[in-house]
């Protein structure tokens, strides 16, 4: 009932400026939003003097941190589009890290990739058996898988890594494994390093763009490229093929899909197993990044992937944006603790824009609230030199929570997501 919220006022009397900003469909609007973000960041960097805010090293770290989250979120996408909530992503990721460590130290990075994929997929099989075959509540099964995965990897490590034939291994870690091959774009970001030169000029907007480009083109791992490719591939697979249509129909209205001859159980199985495999790949990435399997390596990234999925409105592009946002905030707090304070200036600027927007729309109470909050954030930026470590550590989580609470009302999940489907009972 409340979904119809469009006010007729926006359609009436469109000026040329409004036409330029909001006309031309979604693509143009997204372009404007991206440009706005770029200008905003550049402005904040120049004003605060925190060059780290848009440096190549922060962007590279952001990419490294975003990829496992993005892979987990992609895993969540497949399973939730088929109607199975997958809170066990964390557990499947844990299995993936172990599989990568075990196969990786014996047969190299290629085997690590396959090992992590298979172990994650095994977790997916378990989740599918519990939720699809036995009709167990999805969240409950996921939580059980998370507990179980932690136990299994510790057990297997004690069994297989602690022995004398695996030098350097122990009950919580594997022997070291090969790194994955990595690539840089010649001339632009290695060798002559044109982008690096540009970045060091600290010009408004241009250097920021150079930093971003260099960050994502210098020393990029194989799995990173694979993960980036998987986003459009998932989109095409889920939204442009018959397979994808059938899979999504299981998440929207399984009874209708069933009546049209879609084998709902099979599709759910396939989706959850793919989901586990992708989460496992996220685990492989973490192992590659560290060069070793370590217990507790995932650090809750499976859960954050789930948040990124919801943030992205159960769409590949959206979840990539969510993972990117989280990765960026995380990279910032890891690389440059003082730069986090500059985020307060960013918040202040955004709030000022919100206040202006609300004032234009004659919602003066909201406008003044936003303005007060903006002043608070500005005051925080001007008076704080650096935040304590404990506080900085949760910057990404707080950002996610804030963005989610601002955006949540417009999100729409698959209609039958999380509902147990029993054939013939609906």
């Amino acid at each position: 009932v409340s979904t119809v919220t469009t006010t007729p006022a926006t359609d009436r009397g469109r000026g040329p400026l409004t036409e330029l900003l909001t006309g031309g469909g979604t693509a143009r609007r997204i372009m404007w939003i991206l440009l706005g973000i770029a200008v905003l960041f550049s402005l904040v960097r120049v004003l605060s003097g925190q060059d780290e805010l848009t440096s190549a090293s922060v962007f590279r770290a952001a990419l490294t941190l975003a990829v496992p989250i993005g892979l987990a979120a992609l895993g969540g996408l497949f399973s939730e589009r088929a109607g199975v909530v997958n809170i066990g992503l964390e557990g499947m990721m844990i299995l993936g890290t172990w599989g990568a460590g075990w196969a990786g130290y014996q047969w190299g990075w290629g085997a690590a990739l396959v090992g992590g994929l298979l172990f994650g997929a095994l977790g997916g099989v378990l989740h599918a058996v519990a939720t699809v075959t036995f009709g167990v509540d999805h969240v409950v099964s996921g939580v059980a898988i998370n507990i179980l995965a932690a136990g299994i990897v510790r057990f297997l490590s004690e069994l297989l890594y602690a022995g004398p034939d695996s030098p350097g291994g122990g009950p919580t870690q594997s022997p070291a494994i090969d790194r994955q091959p990595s690539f840089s774009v010649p001339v632009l970001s290695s060798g002559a390093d044109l982008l690096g030169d540009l970045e060091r000029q600290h010009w408004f907007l241009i250097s920021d763009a150079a930093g971003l480009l260099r960050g994502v083109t210098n020393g990029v791992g194989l799995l990173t490229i694979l993960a980036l490719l998987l986003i459009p591939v998932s989109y095409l697979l889920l939204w442009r093929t018959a397979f994808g249509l059938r899979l999504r129909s299981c998440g929207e209205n399984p009874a209708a899909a069933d009546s049209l001859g879609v084998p709902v159980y099979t599709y759910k199985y396939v989706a959850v197993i793919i989901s586990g495999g992708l989460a496992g790949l996220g685990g492989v990435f973490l192992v590659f990044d560290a060069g070793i399997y370590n217990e507790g390596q995932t650090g809750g990234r499976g859960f954050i992937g789930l948040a990124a999925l919801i943030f992205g409105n159960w769409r590949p592009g959206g979840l990539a944006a969510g993972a990117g946002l989280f990765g960026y905030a995380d990279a910032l707090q890891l690389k440059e603790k003082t730069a986090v304070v500059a985020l307060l200036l960013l918040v202040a600027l955004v709030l000022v824009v919100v206040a202006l927007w609300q004032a234009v729309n004659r919602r003066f109470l909201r406008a003044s609230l936003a303005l007060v909050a903006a002043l608070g954030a500005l005051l925080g930026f001007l008076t704080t030199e650096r935040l304590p470590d404990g506080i900085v550590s949760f910057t990404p989580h707080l950002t996610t929570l804030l963005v989610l609470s601002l955006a949540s009302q417009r999100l729409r999940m698959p209609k039958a997501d999380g509902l147990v489907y029993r054939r013939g009972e609906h």
Partner: protein
Amino acid sequence: MSGSALLRRFGPALLAPTMAVGVALVISGLVIALIGENPFEALAVMFDFGETPAQQTQAIVLILNRAIPLFLAGLAVSIAFRMGLFNIGVEGQYRLATILAAGVGAAVVLPAPLHVLLIVVVGMVVGAAWAGIVGVLKVTRGVSEVISSIMLNFIALGLASFLLTGPLNGSEPGDSIINTPTIPESGRFPGLNGFLGAIGLAQPRTQLFGFLVVAALVGVLISVLLNRTRFGFDLRATGLSPSAAQASGVDARGMVIKTMLLSGAVAGLIGMPDLLGEQYKYGTQFTAGLGFLGIAVALLGRNSPVGIAFAALLFGFLDRAAIPLQFADIPASVVTIIQGTIVLAVVIANEVTRRLTRRQAERAGAGHSGAPPDGEGVAAVAAAASGGQRVRAGEPGGQQGAQS
């Protein structure tokens, strides 16, 4: 009530957990056999409580001391479960509550009972407030409680580490273990070893937490509140069918917030047995992970306080067995595997028995209009099962109507 009637009344409720524990034991036995150890020997090790009477009571006290916080954790999770909410944030709630309670407890001087009361109240208020954020975000902004409580877990742990290294740091510089200042004598909860002596048991080395009494009391209170009051009825009704509850005049939005506050307040108690009975301070070594185990305990106990008590005892028993297993050269992680398998097996078994009882009821209903044999057990499972259904909906079913 005859024996067969009793079996019919409680059979289905007991069947699922018994089946689950059985299946988990068989799987774990296979795992142990797979690594070339004798499963029966492992079982014997787990049940070996020691030679002397003192050793045996010591083992029992260790199990109880572990079970008390697990019981509280399970209770906190189950309150939200009964309403169809999934409070995965118990971990953060109790960690933040414990450190703040420890800080306040060390900072003030009061007569003994008041001092303890103050610490406990601070814990409950902090836990409730932290869980309340989840409730408020859910009803005002439609944020799924699963996601917000996961994020709040991370934020709570960050805040706790900030408080521990900053304002509430009570350790000397350079110490490897950082703790809050120690709570003085008047703020400690007396142990129950005197009672153990009085009933003729040998004195163990460790004190049995006096908080056992409080935990039991809380269990009874929650049970009465959920099963015998209007609030409890509304809560369970909303859990079973949000739209039906809404139609009969239950304020769904208010119920979400109240339930989260209650769940959080109980979560705030989880750290208290350790804090007031043994450690007297919060530090980097303080017991972690109880919130997540609480989910498992609540599931195993089928959301009823009595069931949760047994589940907590079982988990306490398994956790104690970890160290003797290690001594017998069997990886202690077997215990985690058993726990995880039990949870997975119990949810599957719950589902299977639910279907069996329903089929039975349908068959019985064909002849005469008989009620389902175990209404309450089925209700609890249904409440747990519906937890996932609206997890992402952002808001309980009928709420959109309320907003427009």
